[in-house]
């Protein structure tokens, strides 16, 4: 009986933390939850205009290609940065109450997942209105890849949240890393477009995030080919990484209270 109520409480605590972080971001802003949509879509508009009108590139289905890239990149960016800060942000309650700290990490990540969901819904609507075929398999494939990314980043968050308590400038390093990642990932461009200098083509082509992105696009038949075995491999690696992260976290989390 007590076991059930403890688990019930942990679930409720998790829900409360997610609700709180969501409210905190959008509570007093005028546009509220709309900001979730405005950021990627305004980025999209700017990039689209620059790329097609100014630079005169012509990639088939470019708007959706670009949009999917931006949305997923935003997803990864949020998972990485928020995941890293998840323990530091909750220092208040961590120092006063004993609860499984994994909940603090997971509740921070879930908000990124919710944002992705909202953005995807809008993309699907746009795709339908522009005549692109949206199949159920496409959507499921897209969600599958989102899961791979989520699980991997969860593992990453297990490592970074603990490490950044001891080394606070990890945040800056990750932000820099994400910025660099942006430009070696085929978000704006395609791997084959002639804009990439030859020295970087292998990096861009081999970039796992790029591969994942292209698979999402492939699922909707916009670009590239679907490669399910490869994605299963990726999922396996992500799970292994997450498990390692979990072990690292469990082992080190007891000592963090003294480093705040």
């Amino acid at each position, binding site marked *: 009986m007590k076991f059930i109520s403890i688990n019930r409480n942990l679930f409720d605590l998790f829900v409360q933390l997610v609700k709180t972080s969501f409210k905190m971001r959008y*509570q007093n802003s005028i546009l509220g939850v709309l900001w979730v949509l405005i950021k990627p879509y305004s980025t999209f508009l700017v990039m689209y205009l620059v790329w097609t009108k100014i630079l005169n590139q012509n990639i088939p289905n470019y708007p959706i290609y670009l949009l999917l890239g931006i949305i997923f990149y935003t997803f990864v960016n949020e998972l990485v940065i928020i995941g890293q800060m998840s323990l530091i942000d909750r220092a*208040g309650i*961590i120092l006063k*109450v*004993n609860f499984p700290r994994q909940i603090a990490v997971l509740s921070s990540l879930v908000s990124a997942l919710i944002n992705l969901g909202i953005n995807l819904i809008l993309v699907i609507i746009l795709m339908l209105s522009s005549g692109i075929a949206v199949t159920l398999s496409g959507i499921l494939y897209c969600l599958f890849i989102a899961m791979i990314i989520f699980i991997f980043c969860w593992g990453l968050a297990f490592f970074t949240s603990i490490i950044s308590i001891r080394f606070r400038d990890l945040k800056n390093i990750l932000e820099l890393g994400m910025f660099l990642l942006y430009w070696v990932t085929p978000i704006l461009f395609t791997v084959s477009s002639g804009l990439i200098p030859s020295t970087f083509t292998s990096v861009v082509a081999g970039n796992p995030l790029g591969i994942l992105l292209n698979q999402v696009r492939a699922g909707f038949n916009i670009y590239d080919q679907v490669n399910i075995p490869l994605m299963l491999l990726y999922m396996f690696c992500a799970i292994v990484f997450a498990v390692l992260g979990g072990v690292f976290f469990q082992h080190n989390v007891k000592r963090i209270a003294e480093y705040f």
Partner: protein
Amino acid sequence: MDKILKSFEPNARESQELAIKVENVSKTFYTNEDTKFSLRSLFSSFFRQGKTKKFRVLRNVNIEIKKGEFVGLIGKNGSGKSTLLKLIAGIYNPDHGGKIQVNGSLVPFLELGVGFNTELSGRENIYLNGTILGMTKKFLDSKFKEIVKFADLAEFIETPVKNYSSGMLVRLAFSIAIQSHADIYILDEILAVGDENFQRKSRKVINRFKREKKTILFVSHDTNAIQTLCDRAILIDEHEVCADGNPASVIQEYRRLIEPQAEIDAVKMPEGKTTGESFGEKLIEITDVKITDNAGKQKSVYTTADIINISISYKNNSSEPHDYYIGVAIGNEVGQVITGTNSKNYQQHSTLRQTGTTIYKLAGRYFVDGKYYVTIGVFDYNTEEALHFLSQMYSFDMLSYGKDIGQISLPAEWEVS
């Protein structure tokens, strides 16, 4: 036969009855001189070992608290009390070799309003704080009205908490916290906050916990509270357990530690001399005041078993004999006069030639715990004019073995039928 059986299972029975077991627990903090938590420090330590200072906060603590015990934890600031609480609450981990066992659910009241988010409304914070403290949403739904009522915040429950006064915050936080049904509570000086009304409410709740036989570990600087509420007290000083047992004796030990000066003073000058005011024309001048017990011994702390003798010596500065009486007033720490009387009221008519001494004897039996200030005056018998007046120049500490509260302890009888 029973004894033999018992000897085979002493631990099982013991652990059933114990709520908290602290075994050989020490806690050391490491502070780096270079406290910048950056990668630079990682590199620099490769080449130069930054000085890491070891800071021993607790040393070899062994405590066993039985279920249902109400234990008070006292000690000077910095003695390690809060660290011990955090260790028991599972927030810190003991150094290698130490072990802490907790049997039963534990709710720490280390800070009221843990997790309170100022942007959210009172309602939202009830759920947030409540789940942090271990309650489920369903439970909070059922207790919501009660929480709001106890905190007296029905009108404001939907407004953001940042608009609450500090009193409102404390009421809300406390109201949520007491709904948690745990076996063990750890209270860290939380009764010290709030106005009188709130203090009364919190006392009531603590008493309810006591009646429900909850295990409570209570940290406070309020020795009166420790005396009245606790069955047992533990004193921590210099990072170790100094005393453990009956609250009255542990508090005495505590007083001795925080007022070591009093011991020295007892040797050098009259016990309990404090700076007060002295005025009067000094036709008759008070030369000496001694506060002792009936045996003539000057003590740092008197108990309710003592009879306090205030011995006042004085001399006549004029050449003529003078009719006089002595007045004494005893006040408490809050400035109230507990008792004020004089020898004239007691039909003492004296004439002073050169020197004299009057002893005012007062039964300690009527006092409650606290520090008392003594005001003494010598008056002209006929005009009742103060000839020499020493206002609150002396003090003595009273430790009561009884548990009465209020300003004085009156003798009474109880008839139960």
